């Protein structure tokens, strides 16, 4: 099992550009999540999905979009990149969403917007 994979590992964007962060999991998990991690701020939930075709906003969704067409993939889209979106982005998945389950994290994408 590869677990949760993310691409790219690093990316530099100019203000106003758009990009998609890819996330794939091979554990057949229904639940998937996108977080951003800023220094000294912990992780903040951007969007999550409870299954193919179902997504919902997390704590900090502004400036991002997601889709979930398959169980395996959960891409995160930045439409108009802004310096405030400079961060490390983590994708995660879990088997259930009832509260006590482990979330499995990908290695992260480090994004810089200049």
């Amino acid at each position, binding site marked *: 099992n590869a677990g949760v994979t993310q691409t790219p590992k690093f990316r530099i964007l100019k203000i106003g550009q758009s990009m998609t962060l890819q996330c794939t999991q091979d554990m057949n998990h229904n639940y998937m999540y996108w977080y951003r991690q800023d220094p*000294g701020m*912990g*992780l903040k939930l951007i969007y999550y999905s409870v299954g193919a075709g179902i997504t919902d906003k997390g704590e900090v969704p502004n400036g991002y979009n997601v889709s979930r067409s398959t169980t395996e993939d959960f891409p995160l889209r930045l439409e108009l990149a802004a310096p405030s979106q400079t961060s490390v982005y983590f994708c*995660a998945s879990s088997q259930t969403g*009832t509260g*006590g389950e482990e*979330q499995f*994290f990908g*290695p*992260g994408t480090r994004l810089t917007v200049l």
Partner: protein
Amino acid sequence: AQSVTQLDSQVPVFEEAPVELRCNYSSSVSVYLFWYVQYPNQGLQLLLKYLSGSTLVESINGFEAEFNKSQTSFHLRKPSVHISDTAEYFCAVSRFYGGATNKLIFGTGTLLAVQP
């Protein structure tokens, strides 16, 4: 609303010394508690968790945490640290929303820096 407080942003410690990383949470309902570890340039990994039952939970690499409901704390301890324990440690809390998806609320993290 739930929140998690990790007061120590960085904890330097010498190898083989004991360490405690502090975590306090606020919630008006029962919660599940977690410690995740992030090694340099990697994603987070679950270290241990408390769901119910015994208030002392242990990890496979010698860490333990004790759930203290009266003090709303879930401090992480290890009696003797190794260089390889150098990492950032995140405390997190979640609860079941009765049909809605559980969400993890993370603390701001504590960097454990083990020195030889």
